[in-house]
């Protein structure tokens, strides 16, 4: 089964999720580029790394389930891992920025 053989009722939501994920990630990275201070910049890419990644992972689950004709949910591993690790990185970076500004 090829990518163009995916039936339309799966292809439409998957394509919508892919487009949404791409646009959200692009908006987040533009915010990383355009905002003025570090504290404004740190919240912009989280939109891409949570909602954008979630959209792409759900689209991947849909399409690989359809291609292999059985439930494929191992993309949930990446989702759980990103949801666990993104706040840790953000918290460490914020604390590092605060302690560097104080010095």
């Amino acid at each position, binding site marked *: 089964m090829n990518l163009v053989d*995916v039936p339309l009722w799966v292809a439409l939501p998957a394509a919508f999720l892919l487009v949404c994920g791409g646009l959200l990630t692009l908006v987040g990275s533009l915010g990383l*580029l355009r905002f003025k201070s570090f504290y404004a910049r740190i919240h912009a890419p989280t939109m891409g790394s949570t909602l954008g990644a979630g959209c792409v992972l759900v*689209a*991947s689950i849909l399409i690989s389930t359809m*291609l292999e004709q059985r439930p494929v949910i191992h993309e949930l591993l990446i989702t759980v891992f990103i949801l666990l690790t993104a706040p*840790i990185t953000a918290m*460490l970076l914020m604390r590092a920025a605060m302690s560097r500004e104080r010095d």
Partner: protein
Amino acid sequence: MSVILPLAVKFALACFALSMLCALIRLLRGPAAQDRILALDTLYINGMLTILTLGIGFGAAIYFDIALLIALFGFVGSAAMAKFLLRGEVIEP
């Protein structure tokens, strides 16, 4: 059946390439070190999403493993560099 899915994959790849370019510009000209680490964090997330979207486009399952490895080691690198900025050393005695 439909051509909409390859088009969506191409559009998402273009979006991820543009956002990686934005993160690269911020990485090169970031005023402080924490800006560069934040840009590197964004860069590895975008690279992981690019690999996943390529996996959707080619219909191959091997790309998932690469994306998982990038997510694992990217977090380790970002956390280590942020810890280095915070304390001056990564693993404290």
